[in-house]
Each structure stands twice: as structure tokens, then as C-alpha cells.
């Protein structure tokens, strides 16, 4: 075992931590409606977009904002569904790929619009070049932009300001954040070896005299927004384990940084926007602590390797190599699996199905908690929901009306939050139980691991993550429809309820802070926040985890 890969992990994390605060301030400035320096750069382009789009730059109420999100996203789902259904008749289909079935097209359209990118098809054989370059890439830009917009609107509400205009925020997320960074990243990734061509394949004469078909495509541009937007869907079936989609150690490190960039910055954006930077920092540190615990457990487990391989007389000096790539190695694969599930990206550079049971549990645990940074925008939304729960619990314990940022948290807000909190385990556990009872034949791995496969699929759908235990035969009507519905509800239900909370808090008069007010910008609050996350998460999901990964580990 070498120490060098660990230095690689530490260096990556230090760079990410150093980027978080300046990036967070940048995002806050990017969405500030008062004219500033950034308008000189982006103003003319954005004005053009507003004019062509017919966007009136007025503030929306929470209902108008939520309606704009739902209507725009639904229309795009419909358009993209049609593209998938008609891809055999549309242009740019050199590989002659057939139309998607209705259930798979529904699943894929919802999956990419909800920032999930669960893929029940394989990129090489399931999508035409036209579908990849239009439907998929467009969704990969618009869906993180939607998430960021809603998060910004929610934070504005907490800060006591009007929520803003959805279409303006969507445009700004694209012009000021996603497009510029993705452009630079794409060019760097291509330089590192990611193909960028409109040819879908070449044929090679191999050394042994056989023919090898090699699929290629415009992968650099695809990969950049896949990681930066916390999308995670692969151009190829093997995702970032594919050597074209992740040619080496540096491209792997860059992908990890891109996945983390927006989620780690948003706590600082929040701190700046509500005028309480210390609180943003407390949330950031709390999440980073949880992240490091998760990472350590995963690394430890992957290093042990598989005891059954050990028993067959094989030395596993490098750790568990099944489902992993040599150039990336065990440590960077484990690191990637923790980052992709913490940031709800869903890209994989190792097959999660083959992870050692405890490392698999870390991946699934990150998605169940959904608060270890979380995805573009929706992560901070969820985190702030838990922060309000932490305030509420503390308020109950000392017998005071809980306050958050000087506004009273009352029955109406708590009801909305409680429903949001309850819908997630319902969306995961109920369909898991149904699937286990009705379609056990879709499970590919026997024993306890089979239960984990099903649990993972619905957890990934409900967390809008998109990674999978891919052994599952999931391109069936049952899986396409059920996970499609779970992804849709999980994404939009919490967006609407939390916008309602923001709308309600906005109407309240601020109460002055007294000596009895719970300070939410102190380390103690960070502890309360983590305890709230862990208790709620652990109580809900621990039994399922015992039956799946823990039982598998104990019986190896």
C-alpha cells in the first residue's frame, strides 16, 4: 500500500475547500439583482435572451415561481420524450439506432430533467448521436440550472427578500456559471484524451487480426456538463470507468473537483446572501466532517478487499479490483464513489455493484441522508430544511418558539417540512418492498446483496442521484415506470413545499434577537444539525441497511 494516492485525495480536497468560498461569493453576486460589475460582462447577452424568450424581469410570488418551474420542466420532458421516441426518424443517426420504447423514453426523459440520470439504456446502443447532442446535453444544462435557481429563490425568501424570477435565475445560472466553466473544462478534458468528434465509431484491425469496433463521439463537451451540473449520466454505458470518459488520474481528479464545486460553494453563497457568513461556514464544516467520515469508512473497506478472493489464495495487495480500472486504482475509485453519491451526481468510475459491502453502504447512505453537500442547488435546499428541523428540535427541548434567521418557525412551516421529510423514506422503502415481492427475478446477485440492489435503485431515484447497482435488469416496464415516478415526485415535491416555506417566512415580521435565542452560527449548532441528520436518517433506514449490506459483510 502506497501513501501517494492518499496525498492525491488530500490535495484534491484542499483545492476544493480553497475554491468553495470564492466560488460561493461569486454565485451570490451572479444572482444579485442590483446592478453590479458582472452585468457589464453578461448583461448584453442576457438582455438578448430575455427579449427573445419574452421574459419580463419581475419578481414572482412563491406560487408563480413554483408554477414556472413545474410548467417549464414538464414541457421539456414532453419534448425530449418525443425526441427519444422518434430518434430513428430524426437526423444524425449514423449507427442506425432504433426508437426507444415508451416506458424507457419516459424514464430517460424524467431522469435527465430531474438531474438524476438513472440510465436504463446503454449510451453506445440506446441513443442516436442526435439524442445525445440535443435532448441529453440540453437537459444536462437546464436541470442543474433549475436546481440552482430554486435554491437561490429559497435563500432569498429566508433572507426576507422577494423570491425573484425563475426564468431570469435559470438564464443566469447558465450564462454566468455553467456554460463558462463547462467550456473551459471541456477543452481541458479533451486535451487529457477524451474524444470530441462527430464520428460515432472507428474500426480497428487488432494485433491478433480481429476487428474491433470502437465507439466514439462528442464526449468532451458531454463529460464537462455531466460532472459540473451534478448530472452523472454517461455517454458510454460504463460511464467514467470507460477509458474515453476518464483517461487517467488527472481527468479523474478534475471530475471529482467539478462534481464538488457547486455543492460545496452553496453554503457560502447562502451565508453571503442572508448576511450571516458564519452560519454558512458552520454548515459547510458540518457537512465536510460527515463527508470525511464517510470517505474514511469507504477507503478502509475497499482496502480490505474481498475475503472470498483471499480464501482462493490470491494476494489482494491493491485492494478490491473487481469492477475497477488499473489507471485509477482502489483509492481514487473509492473517493469517486463517495463524492458522486455525496454530491448526488451519479457518475461512476467503478461499478458500484462490485464495491465491498460497507463501501456500497457508504454510497447508499450518502444518498439516504442527501445532506452531505447534495446536488446542484437541491443539496443546500435539503440542508437548510434539516437546519430548520434542528432549530425546531432545539426549540422544543428548551421550550421556546424556534426562530431561524430572526423569523419564527411555526406550525405551517413545520407541517410542510414534516411532509417533505416523510415523503423520501416513503418513496424509497415502499417501492423497494413492492419490487422485492413482485419482481425478484430482476435481481442479478443472489443473497443479501440482491436486496441492496433494489434498495439502491430506489434510493438513487429518490435522491435524484442516478448511479446504480447496475447488475439489476432494470429496463422493464415496472422499473422504468416506478423509478420514473419516484424521480419526478422526489424532485418537484420538495421544491414546491420548500418554496412555500420560503413564501411563508417572507411574510413574517423579524423578531429581535435576545439572549435566549438559539445562535445558529456557532459550532454547537453544527453539532445539533449533524445529530438531527443522523438521527432522522439512521432511524429511518437502519433496518433496511442491516438486511442488505451489513448482513452481506457479516456473511462474507
Amino acid at each position, binding site marked *: 500500500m502506497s501513501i*501517494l*494516492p492518499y496525498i*492525491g485525495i488530500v*490535495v484534491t480536497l484542499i483545492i476544493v475547500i480553497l475554491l468553495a468560498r470564492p466560488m460561493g461569493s461569486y454565485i451570490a453576486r451572479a444572482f444579485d439583482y442590483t446592478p453590479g460589475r458582472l452585468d457589464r460582462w453578461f448583461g448584453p447577452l442576457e438582455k*438578448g*435572451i430575455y427579449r*427573445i424568450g419574452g421574459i419580463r424581469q419581475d419578481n414572482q410570488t412563491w406560487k408563480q415561481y413554483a408554477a*414556472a418551474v413545474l410548467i*417549464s420542466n414538464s414541457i421539456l420532458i414532453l419534448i425530449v420524450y418525443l425526441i427519444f421516441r422518434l430518434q430513428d426518424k430524426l437526423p444524425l443517426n449514423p449507427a442506425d439506432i432504433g426508437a426507444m420504447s415508451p416506458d424507457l423514453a419516459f424514464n430517460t426523459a424524467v431522469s435527465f430533467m430531474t438531474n438524476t440520470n438513472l440510465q436504463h439504456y446503454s449510451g*453506445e446502443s440506446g441513443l442516436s448521436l442526435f439524442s445525445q447532442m*440535443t435532448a441529453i*446535453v440540453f437537459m444536462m*444544462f*437546464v436541470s442543474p440550472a433549475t436546481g440552482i435557481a430554486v435554491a437561490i429563490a429559497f435563500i432569498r425568501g429566508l433572507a426576507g427578500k422577494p423570491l425573484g424570477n425563475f426564468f431570469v435565475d435559470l438564464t443566469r445560472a*447558465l450564462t454566468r456559471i455553467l*456554460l463558462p466553466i463547462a467550456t473551459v473544462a471541456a*477543452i481541458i478534458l*479533451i*486535451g487529457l484524451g477524451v*474524444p470530441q*468528434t462527430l464520428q460515432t465509431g472507428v474500426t*480497428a484491425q*487488432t*494485433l*491478433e487480426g480481429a476487428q*474491433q469496433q*470502437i*465507439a466514439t463521439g462528442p464526449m*468532451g*463537451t458531454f463529460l464537462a456538463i455531466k460532472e459540473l451540473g451534478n448530472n452523472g449520466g454517461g455517454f*458510454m*454505458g*460504463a460511464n467514467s*470507468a470507460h*477509458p474515453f470518459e476518464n483517461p487517467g*488520474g*488527472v481527468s*479523474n481528479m478534475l471530475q471529482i473537483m467539478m462534481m464538488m464545486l457547486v455543492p460545496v460553494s452553496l453554503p457560502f453563497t447562502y451565508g453571503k446572501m442572508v448576511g450571516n457568513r458564519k452560519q454558512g461556514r458552520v454548515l459547510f464544516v458540518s457537512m465536510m466532517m460527515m463527508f470525511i467520515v464517510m470517505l474514511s469508512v469507504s477507503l478502509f473497506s475497499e482496502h480490505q478487499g474481498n475475503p*472470498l*478472493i483471499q480464501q*482462493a489464495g*490470491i*494476494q489482494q*495487495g*491493491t485492494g478490491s*479490483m*473487481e*469492477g475497477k*480500472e*488499473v489507471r485509477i*486504482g482502489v483509492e*481514487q*475509485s473509492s473517493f469517486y464513489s463517495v463524492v458522486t453519491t455525496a454530491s448526488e451526481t451519479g457518475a461512476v468510475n467503478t*461499478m458500484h*455493484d*462490485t464495491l465491498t*459491502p460497507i463501501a456500497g453502504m457508504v454510497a447508499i447512505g450518502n444518498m439516504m441522508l442527501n445532506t452531505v453537500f447534495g446536488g446542484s442547488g437541491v443539496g443546500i435546499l435539503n440542508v437548510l430544511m434539516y437546519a430548520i428541523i434542528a432549530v425546531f428540535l432545539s426549540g422544543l427541548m428548551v421550550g421556546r418558539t424556534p426562530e431561524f434567521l430572526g423569523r419564527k418557525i411555526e406550525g405551517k412551516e413545520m407541517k410542510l417540512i414534516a411532509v417533505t421529510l416523510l415523503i423520501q423514506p416513503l418513496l424509497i422503502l415502499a417501492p423497494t418492498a413492492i419490487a422485492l415481492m413482485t419482481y425478484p427475478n430482476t435481481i442479478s446477485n443472489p443473497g443479501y446483496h440482491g436486496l441492496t440492489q433494489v434498495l439502491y435503485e430506489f434510493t438513487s431515484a429518490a435522491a435524484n442521484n442516478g448511479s446504480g447497482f447496475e*447488475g439489476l435488469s432494470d429496463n422493464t416496464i415496472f422499473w422504468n415506470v416506478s423509478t420514473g415516478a419516484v424521480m419526478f415526485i422526489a424532485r418537484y415535491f420538495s421544491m414546491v413545499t420548500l418554496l412555500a416555506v420560503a413564501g411563508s417566512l417572507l411574510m413574517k415580521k423579524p423578531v429581535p434577537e435576545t439572549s435566549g435565542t438559539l445562535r445558529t452560527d456557532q459550532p454547537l449548532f453544527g453539532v445539533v444539525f449533524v445529530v438531527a441528520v443522523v438521527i432522522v436518517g439512521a432511524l429511518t433506514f437502519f433496518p433496511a441497511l442491516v438486511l442488505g449490506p451489513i448482513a*452481506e459483510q457479516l456473511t*462474507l
Partner: protein
Amino acid sequence: MKNVWITLRTSAILFVMCCVLYQLVITGIARVVMPHQAAGSLIYNSNHDVIGSELIGQSFTDPHYFQGRVSSVEYNANGSGSPNYAPSNPELIKRIEESVVTWQKQNPSVPVASLPVDLITNSGSGLDPDITPQAAAAQIPRISKLTGLSAEQLESIVSNNTTPAQLGIFGEPAVNVLKLNLAVQQLRAQS
């Protein structure tokens, strides 16, 4: 209804930016500035025919060549993936035991205890172009015996085709099997 109209119009202009301009402009830049990478890091023979890609593994069944990792897709790069065997799946252990038997047959002088684990595990993509330096070293006795090339010659081409972890700390040292076997082929043609 107002939202529908705004969505359609805004989507049209954003589509032009995010799909048309973003992808086509970068494709153009890549083609001019980095044509080798953009096309898929292809390797050509002296007749300018494509014989593979630096980044994509090839199937080597002939024991005269260095062999790569287990691939359930048999290195058909028109697809990718792994069989997704869980650590507890009996099929995994069965496959590994079969690989060990084959190994012993082909490499009688190398004990199973020094058989590197990457040679008997399926890569994530099924297209892994690399093996570990240990896995290359373990195959040297066999190839030397079959081809008549000396162990020193083979050790030297292995080290020539080994790339260290990038920037020293990202990823792992790896030996590119296709490039290594091209060197084997060249040495055999010379001798």
C-alpha cells in the same frame, strides 16, 4: 399559458447556446488544436490503418502476448461494462477459480500467490487498456519461454511502456498492454 410560451421561446435560444454553439465550437477547436485526442487517441500502422486506440484495451488470447484484464464484453468497444458481480456472488469466485486454473496451465513457473489480482478481476469498463507493473512482470517468464526473447529485453519494454501515476499522486502506475504487445511484436520481427 404565459409560462408555456416563455418556456418554448427561452428554450429555443438556450438550446442554440448550450447545444449548437457549445458543442460545435468546441468540436471545431478540438479538431484543429488536439486532433489526436479528439479522434480517440488512435494508433496507426505503417499503412495508416487504425490498429487500435491507446486508451482502449484489446483482447489478447495468444499466450505469446501479454494478456490484459478479464472482460465480460470481450473488449468489444462498441459497448462497455462489467458483469457486476457482488463480492458475495458465487459466480465471481467460480470465475476467479477458473482464471487461476488457466493461469497455472500457462504459467507453471509462477506461483498463484504472486498472481496479481488485476489479472483475474473484470475491469469496470471491460475495456481497461492497462495492467499493473506487477501483472506485466508476472507474465515475463511465460513470454520469454514461448518467444525466445530474453527476460531483460522484456523487462526493458515493460518499463518503457509503464506510465507512473499522473503528477505523481493521481491514479496508479500502469502498463499499456497494446503498446507493450506492439513492442513485443517488433522485437520478435527483429530476432
